[in-house]
């Protein structure tokens, strides 16, 4: 009896019984367009390591992720924020952290900016660095294109609408933002903290400035002290099915750190 159980276990581990054991070998994930590209990449790797399994990812915003997970329309919801008090019926598993840093040109003598000052710069009320104790130089505010997750987080944190922002340059990806700020001593921009820190260390002439007195760094995002950040969550209602549980475990493991970093997010553990 014991031996049979052992053999079965070995077979299971070897994946022989998998097609039989997994009555449902499909996993549906829906929700935040920020988490979806990462979930898609993790899903692809998960599929490769578990032949026969299909991971379906659809976008539709964090609210859809919450809704679908609650109603059972999806196995796992994708939510790019912490759950609030009304969502305690769901369980959130953080797979990565998203943090953005405000960057200035290295030659800019301004060392920090308050939330109000940043809002004034981005709404066009402050137009010259002189008003902030810097040199007499016009400010070039660099904003992100609509639909980008960094823009969404930025707007949410500073309680702005995109139509209120008066930018001088609108950019697509982080690299373009870093190059734009590096090439213009009067520029201010915001990009994913991981890529900004990397480029700053490489000697690109940009400087990350602290937010609310907290140094902007990947480490500060990871320990939760940096304010301009958010968790990227997989949410489920009750106990997930076995396959879902395995996927969550895989998505939280160090085996996907490279995928997390490729999307400019911060992995849970270094």
């Amino acid at each position, binding site marked *: 009896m014991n031996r049979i159980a052992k053999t079965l276990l070995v077979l299971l581990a070897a994946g022989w019984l998998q097609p039989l054991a997994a009555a449902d070998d499909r996993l549906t994930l829906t929700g935040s367009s920020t988490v979806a590209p990462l979930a898609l990449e993790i899903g692809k790797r998960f599929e490769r390591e578990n032949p026969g399994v299909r991971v379906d990812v659809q976008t539709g915003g964090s609210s859809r992720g919450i809704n679908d997970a609650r109603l059972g329309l999806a196995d796992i919801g994708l939510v790019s924020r912490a759950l609030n008090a009304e969502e305690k019926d769901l369980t959130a598993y953080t797979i990565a952290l998203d943090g953005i840093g405000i960057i200035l040109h290295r030659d800019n003598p301004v060392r920090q900016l308050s939330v109000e000052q940043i809002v004034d710069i981005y709404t066009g009320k402050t137009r010259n660095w002189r008003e902030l104790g810097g040199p007499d130089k016009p400010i070039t505010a660099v904003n992100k294109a609509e639909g980008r997750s960094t823009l969404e987080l930025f707007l949410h944190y500073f309680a702005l609408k995109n139509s209120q922002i008066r930018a*001088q340059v609108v950019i697509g990806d982080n690299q373009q933002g870093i190059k734009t700020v590096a090439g213009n001593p009067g520029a201010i921009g915001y990009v994913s903290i991981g890529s900004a820190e990397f480029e700053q260390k490489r000697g690109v002439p940009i400087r990350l400035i602290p937010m609310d007195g907290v140094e902007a760094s990947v480490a500060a995002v990871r320990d939760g002290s940096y304010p301009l950040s958010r968790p990227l969550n997989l949410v489920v209602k009750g106990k997930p099915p076995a396959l879902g549980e395995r996927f969550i475990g895989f998505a939280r493991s160090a085996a996907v750190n490279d995928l997390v970093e490729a999307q400019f997010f911060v992995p849970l553990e270094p």
Partner: protein
Amino acid sequence: MQAKSRAGLAPTASPGLVQRFLKRDSDRRLGALLAGLAAACATLLLLVLAFLLVESLPVLAHWRAFFSSEGWYPLENRFDLMPMLWASLAAATGALLLAAPLGLASAIFVVFYAPAPLARFYRLVLNLLAGIPSVVFGLWGLTVLVPLIARWQPPGASLLAAVLILALMILPTVAVTAIAALRAVPRAVLSGAVALGIGARGRILGVALPAARGGITGGFLLAAARALGETMAVLMVAGNVVQNPSGLFEPVRVLTANIALEMAYATGTHRSGLFASGLVLTLLVLLLAWLGTRVMRGHRHG
């Protein structure tokens, strides 16, 4: 030369011969194959247009929003496309204004003045220039040109930067097509001018240029279409702020950059709005192509 080669294709030239050739079995099969391939190409183009139409349908119902002057904030349901249309036209026109005289001058130099080895070298350089991927121009613009303008007139990323980059990119197109058009001017016409005692200046400006007008204008339109369709290089240097182009140093966003910037993360009506940008751009380029064929039709040389 030209007259002879054209006669071979003209149906009036030798109907009996053409008919006999077509009767042959293998030729008939080849004809059917070529007809099929040509039909497939045409169908593909129509399908692309249909696809653009279908995808932009949800926004096309509110087409008035395209002219609303409310700005482009698709997530707030504001879809004003006009500033980007003007920006596209301004950037392409500016680039053509710079590239046309330069390209034409180099073409005249190569065809009429340059010694043969220099002309060969120059044509090689032009072809090389035409082959440089646009993203390389963009990278150079972003890291060299934009900071240069920013030192003078911040923010640097501006209509001017877009115009300069585009001019550099379409210059070879203008020059190469103009060279081809000028070289296609029949020798007899030029010899006639010499025989009449017309000097070099008159021969070039009064005889060769008018004779090659069709090909040269066609090249201009081709270059304009390329400037309108260019994406990466403009996206990197133009600043991409949605506003009517009001000055050379103001940042602008062109239609192509709008699609490239936002498509990756767009859903729902936002996505349809981007397809509508593509539709407007396609119609604009089709209009240019139609103008191009009209201009070319009137002029035989080149």
